């Protein structure tokens, strides 16, 4: 159990900088999810904490120690890899007990610890099997078992669920979260799946091109995204971003006037599809040319009158298209309008 601190951490591969100064303070026992699109540097960041990549600049601290120059085994961490990285020539029992054996724990204690972990992960019946004779979900559990028996200060996860099918993913997501809460071990969890991030995180780090664009609780990130990128990355379907001009009474969108908090200047305006509602007297006129029924609600795709920009709205219930395009009046609560700087993309 420990805190983790990243202080202006940078990583360069040759001349290219892939992590461009990340600052993060993780409290003891906290579950942090690092989320971002492919190639943004999530794995690299995690691997620097693990000691599998050197830190080019800045400082990584675990507990009250600077660990930049420590080997992985001296950092008191454990890690679950995307491909599980089980030892193929060892049984499940040996896989889980390997770290304990190296730590020179007495045999009977190892057996007890392995049995305990196996019971917790429902692996008791598979202890004598080889990894290749297990299903993906079971392998995932073995990797978890290997991570928990050593009782590390910090858990690191690199997309541990991405090789599982959707249903198992939901189940394992809950199991991992419960297990972490029960053991109270600080966790850093990398994923590119924003649903995983939203559901598991105490706080999440949204990364983009080597920069931590926003760090906050899932709801903070959802309700007040710090940048256009975060706004569009978190939330599904993704937020509509439109060019608008702020006026004293709200925002001017083409020839439509949206009431809202006053301001001035050219901005990017964000509206989440789920915050739009049908309203005959609403200020927004939308042309709908595609409806995607999801059961509980329907996604309407089209564009806003006078803007030509693609626009998505989510309306409750079932919606049946009758013709080629349909017209629809919508309104949005002023508190659900997001304004971003036109050039920097930062929240205003």
């Amino acid at each position, binding site marked *: 159990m420990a805190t983790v601190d990243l202080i202006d951490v940078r990583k360069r591969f040759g001349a290219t900088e892939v992590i461009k100064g990340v600052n993060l303070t993780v409290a003891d026992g906290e579950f942090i999810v690092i989320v971002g699109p492919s190639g943004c540097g999530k794995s690299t960041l995690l691997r620097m904490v693990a000691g599998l990549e050197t830190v080019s600049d800045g400082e990584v601290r675990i507990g009250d120690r600077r660990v930049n120059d420590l080997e*992985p*085994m001296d950092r008191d961490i454990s890690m679950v*890899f995307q*491909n599980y*990285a*089980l*030892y193929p020539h060892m049984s499940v029992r040996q896989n889980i007990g390997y*770290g304990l054996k*190296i730590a020179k724990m007495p045999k009977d204690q190892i057996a007890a610890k392995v049995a305990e972990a196996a019971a917790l992960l429902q692996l008791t019946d598979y202890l004598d099997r080889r990894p290749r004779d297990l299903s993906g979900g079971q392998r995932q559990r073995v990797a978890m078992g*290997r991570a928990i028996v050593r009782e590390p200060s910090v858990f690191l996860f690199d997309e541990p669920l991405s090789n599982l099918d959707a249903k198992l993913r939901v189940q394992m997501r809950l199991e991992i979260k419960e297990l972490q809460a029960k053991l109270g071990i600080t966790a850093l969890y990398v994923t590119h799946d924003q649903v995983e991030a939203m559901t598991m995180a105490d706080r999440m780090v949204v990364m983009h091109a080597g920069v931590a664009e926003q760090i906050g609780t899932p709801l903070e990130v959802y309700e007040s995204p710090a940048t256009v990128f975060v706004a569009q990355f978190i939330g599904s379907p993704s937020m509509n971003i439109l060019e608008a001009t702020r006026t004293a009474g709200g925002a001017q969108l083409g020839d439509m006037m949206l009431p809202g908090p006053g301001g001035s200047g050219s901005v990017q305006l964000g509206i989440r599809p789920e915050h739009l509602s049908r309203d005959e007297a609403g200020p927004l006129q939308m042309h709908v040319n595609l409806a995607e029924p999801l059961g509980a609600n329907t996604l309407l795709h089209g564009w806003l009158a006078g803007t030509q920009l693609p626009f998505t709205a989510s309306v409750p219930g079932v919606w049946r298209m009758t013709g080629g395009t349909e017209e629809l009046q919508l309104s949005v609560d002023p508190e659900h309008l997001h304004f971003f700087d036109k050039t920097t993309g930062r929240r205003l």
Partner: protein
Amino acid sequence: MTFKGWILPLLLIAPQVLISAVFFFYPAGQAIWQSLFIPDPFGLSMQWVGLGNFEYLLGNKYYLASFWTTAVFSTLVTVTSMVPALFLAVIADRLIKGAGTYRTLLIWPYAVAPAVAGVLWLFMFNTRVGIVSWYLGLLGYDWNHVLDGTQAMGLVVVASSWGRISYNFLFFYAALQSVPKSVIEAAAIDGARFWRRFWTIVLPLLSPTTFFLLVVNIIYAFFETFGVIHTITGGGPQQATTILVYKVYADGFVGQDLGSSAAQSVILLVVVGLLTVLQFKFVEKRVHY
């Protein structure tokens, strides 16, 4: 895929069967047949002796000594060619800069023909003009493999293993490269340092390659080292380096005792067959594919 009829499958295996027949089964059959006779000194007639040749060989102390020589020689060659190869491959695997040059240099010795390698080594260790023996002499070590059986054995082992190191290196290197990086990393996180990882993770994962090389190198030591032995020691001194294959040649072509030579070939065939079966039965159990 399944075949209907039997013509196509037969055609497909025909070349293999033909080659095996011409170059293996026919000579082997001939050897077995000849091993049952003693030809007269002029080669004009053959006298049937049944298993006489075999009885004679198995009671002959020179022949039995040759068995022992072969066992020592092939064990030494296999170890001397595999252990350094593995060590070099591990280093190459860790190298990031200059790995290409290093690999190329390591592969060169393999391109040298065994007999040429034999001559090279012979030259270096020549008792009168060899540079190595001269230096050994300066150090107070008297090198004379022409008289000293142990030294002769050492020399043929080194000369035979030298080129093989490259061959084994290539296989070990490729196998090392295919060990998943994340498995090694997981072991590092689990607390295993370099050598611990090597013994408990890397080596077991290399075992299919090691097993394959073991079989191949033993067969090499048995048969293909003929050129080296022939150029360096000619089987001497006092048969100290006469391995079974060399004895087949020495007794058959030099000594003109074709019946005994044929019987020796048959025994050799059986020994190699048994050895391979044994390897598959006992060693393979410990291999993790």
